[in-house]
């Protein structure tokens, strides 16, 4: 059984998806099956992480076909970590989903909705788990197509336009990725990532390979919403149903970042990416702009969901910044931020989901004075908001701390200063929400509002508590992130 875990990681969700679709008439049952599926997936992810915790890797040949002819699944510290993030978020978001989805999605489409959710989930897991370049593309498309459907189911009619925008941009991204992979295949005759890494050095010095690198980097950057290719994201997150926003914001961009890391470090190698092609000088300016500009835009948003979406673009900037520092510590900080930002942003979007559930919308005017009637929801928002800012004793602080160390180690004082300055900008936009909810009088036409139901509050607080727990006892994420960074670099590090 345990040797099939890599396959099960994807297969469980992939098989459950059509079953759930057939249960469309029975929304509760559809939800139940999806819930069990997500928990099972999470359990598999935990077991896989434990298997590779010692720095080893797990290989699995799909259908018994040996690589490079067959598709290989390969799990090491890096993708086991990402699998855990996806598993955790989906496992926590599902209990939250029942009430939230019942309110936001028409009853006759709930089964279809969960089916699409499972496909998106399976797609993301597949991208992460596979060691086959073409397979990555296929799973990218599976998750993307499912996501388009999920976003389009938002209550606001603009959701359809947002979904269409995402579709256009996402398709360009995956097409670029496919072109890049095609070039690699032309030059090496293989699609297996490990095999590619072994064969590429012979042909590195060709224009084709450089073009392949460029296509892949741009394509993936579109998917991970690197500034200025982020334009699809605020609308997509802003108009999607609450539960979809929680899930996608915590996982979709993270998986794309993982793919970038996999190609940059494992396939092309550090030497080619950073020394020969000077990735640092491409990524760092974009990362810095990506941190500053969206943060500033976030300050001027009047809708909390869009505000947090712009903040997500800025947070992607932090992760890319860590990568662009081209050091083990920077890489580790980035990988650590994948997790810390996932739990932080998911907690924030869940709190927003609670507000939407009771208030129907989350413009600053609408949530005015909400704290009095929804104290637990807003308290969760404040705590998770502190983590987003990077206040000590929260998860966000731990990443900022390592990111700063990495920047200083690279001798980049101005970058370190900028990091602190942008934390202040984050404090401003989080403060705007707090001020509206705590210090403004509720609008005159406010309905009688109660605290969100426990079914929403408990999952929200589970993640909120995690932002504190992993800010105070940070050993677990730190050691996992170190393990992941070592897996990508391929050599043990002295931390």
């Amino acid at each position: 059984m345990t040797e099939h875990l890599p396959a099960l990681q994807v297969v469980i969700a992939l098989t459950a998806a059509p079953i759930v679709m057939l249960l469309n008439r029975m929304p509760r049952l559809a939800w139940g099956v999806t819930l069990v599926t997500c928990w099972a997936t999470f359990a598999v992810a935990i077991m896989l992480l434990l298997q590779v915790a010692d720095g080893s890797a797990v290989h699995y040949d799909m259908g018994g076909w040996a690589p490079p002819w067959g598709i290989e699944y390969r799990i090491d510290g890096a993708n086991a970590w990402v699998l855990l993030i996806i598993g955790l978020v989906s496992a926590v978001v599902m209990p939250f989903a029942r009430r939230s989805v019942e309110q936001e999605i028409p009853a006759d489409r709930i089964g279809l909705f969960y089916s699409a959710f499972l496909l998106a989930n399976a797609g993301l897991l597949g991208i992460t788990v596979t060691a086959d370049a073409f397979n990555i593309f296929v799973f990218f498309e599976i998750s993307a197509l499912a996501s388009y459907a999920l976003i389009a189911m938002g209550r606001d009619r603009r959701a359809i336009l947002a979904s269409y925008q995402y579709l256009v941009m996402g398709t360009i991204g995956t097409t670029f990725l496919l072109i890049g992979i095609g070039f690699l295949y032309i030059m090496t005759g293989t699609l297996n990532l490990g095999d590619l890494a072994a064969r590429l050095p012979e042909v590195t010095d060709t224009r084709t390979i450089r073009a392949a690198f460029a296509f892949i980097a741009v394509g993936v950057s579109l998917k991970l919403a690197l500034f200025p290719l982020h334009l699809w994201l605020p609308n997509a997150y802003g108009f999607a149903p609450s539960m979809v926003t929680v899930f996608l914001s915590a996982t979709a961009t993270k998986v794309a970042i993982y793919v970038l890391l996999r190609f940059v470090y494992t396939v092309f190698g550090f030497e080619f990416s950073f020394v020969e092609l000077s990735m640092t000088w491409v990524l760092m300016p974009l990362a810095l702009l990506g941190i500053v500009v969206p943060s500033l835009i976030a300050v001027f948003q009047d809708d909390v969901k869009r505000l947090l979406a712009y903040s997500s673009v800025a947070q992607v900037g932090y992760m890319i910044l860590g990568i662009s520092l081209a050091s083990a510590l920077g890489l580790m900080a980035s990988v650590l931020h994948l997790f810390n930002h996932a739990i932080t942003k998911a907690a924030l979007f869940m709190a927003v989901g609670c507000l939407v559930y009771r208030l129907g919308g989350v413009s600053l005017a609408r949530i005015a004075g909400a704290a009095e009637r929804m104290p637990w929801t807003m308290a969760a928002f404040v705590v998770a908001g502190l983590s987003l800012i990077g206040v000590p004793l929260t998860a966000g602080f731990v990443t900022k701390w390592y990111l700063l160390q990495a920047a200083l180690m690279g001798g980049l004082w101005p970058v370190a200063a900028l990091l602190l300055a942008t934390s202040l900008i984050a404090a401003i936009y989080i403060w705007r929400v707090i001020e509206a909810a705590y210090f403004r009088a509720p609008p005159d036409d406010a309905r009688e509002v109660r605290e969100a139901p426990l079914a929403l509050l408990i999952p929200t607080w589970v993640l909120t508590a995690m932002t504190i727990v992993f800010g105070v006892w940070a050993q677990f994420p730190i050691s996992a992130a170190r393990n992941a960074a070592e897996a990508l670099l391929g050599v043990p590090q002295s931390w």
Partner: protein
Amino acid sequence: MVSDATLIYLALATPLVGIFVLLATSRWAALRDAVVVTTAAVMFSIVLQLLPRVRDGQRPSATLLELFPGLEIAFVVEPLGMVFALLASGLWIITAVYAIGYMRGAKELNHTRFHVFFCIALFSATGIAFSANMFSLFVFYEALTLSTYPLVAHKGTETAKKGARTYLGLLLGTSVGLLLPAIIATWWLTGTLDFTPGGIMAGRVDPFVGSILLVLFMYGIGKAALMPFHRWLPAAMVAPTPVSALLHAVAVVKAGVFTVLKVSVYLFGLDYLRELVTSEFILYIAVFTLLSASLVAMQQDNLKARLAYSTVSQLSYIVAAAMLVSEFAALGGGMHIVMHAFGKITLFFCAGAIYVATKKTEISDMNGLGRRMPVTFFAFFIGALCVIGVPPMGGVWSKWHLFMGAYDSGYGLVVLALIVSTLLNIAYLIPPVVRAFLLPPPQGEQAGGVREAPLLCVLPLSLTGLGCLVLFVMAQPLAELLRPYLAVTGG
């Protein structure tokens, strides 16, 4: 014998436990107010248990948790922290009594919320006092800022909110924008943030970088109110007077100068500090602040605003003491934390009592008020003398040490500035007393005999006034307690 760690945790836990009892009893006002005073008394008595141990040369310590290797929330009680913790928790008892009288007399609302945040503020101040490293101190420093924000905004009016925003903006801005980078750079350069006798920077940090760090630290510690980052303190005066008295004359501002002393002595080390070009720069900034704040104070007609600018000025005495790098000055700085606290809290208590009894806030309206409130104005007089530094008040000793320190280090100009500033102190603190006692009350106001503020207001201010006198004779034990902290200054 209770273990050191237990005592430290008990001291920190008491105000937090107090919050729960407070909330549970919030329906019965009298009981709730009794809980507040009890909490303060319990906390003080626990902190007092630590005193004999520190005096015997022990350094009680405890490690709460380790975030990740090398970065801990840990506590060590050393003499300076001991003094600060005793001061804050001791004066809290008196302030708690005063607050009951004031909040009722001035008809303020939301008493429970007020006391809850007061408890958190005291918890944070004690955490600052006991912090074993700069990281722990920073965490509690920020907690103190955040917990006092609702107290400043307590009245909920537009002015209160505006003042509170300035307060939060400046304190958070300086701490995150300047102090945190300085801490991170220190950690990165030295690999530790522990408060170590003799400092951690000597030999590890290039004096040029050290000079920059010093400026970042001194301006980053916004609570020490060096100009031009002093505006938050006058802005905080919109708070109810007990807050101004305990927090913005003692706990918060003293946390600022306490941090300045800690950073100077235990992170930089005075020997290293001497090598830095910017220590002199900060010294002159402090001198400039103490003079110009005094001048501004003279212009203020609002009594609390005048006291606030006076505090800005007095805080710079302590920053200057740290930058003078001499044994006398450093001792004077430590003592001035206590002396000024007693003097200034008395002055604020009086300002509050005047407001409760007459609703008057402007000095020009206080003509002849001394005949109506003799106890209050006499206490004001004593407090003023203590802040000015006139015998027989405690304040004379700290000023004495400061003068000696400045003279010792050869800064004639600083001595001159201190003299001028003392004269200015007289010029802005004595006139209210003179007006109250010697000028006739305005037309239409009846003299009408003695009508003081409620007893719960008058009693505390009499006690702290008495404290100013007692400190005159008690200065020796205080100096003895602080001396070990000097032993490491190498002065």
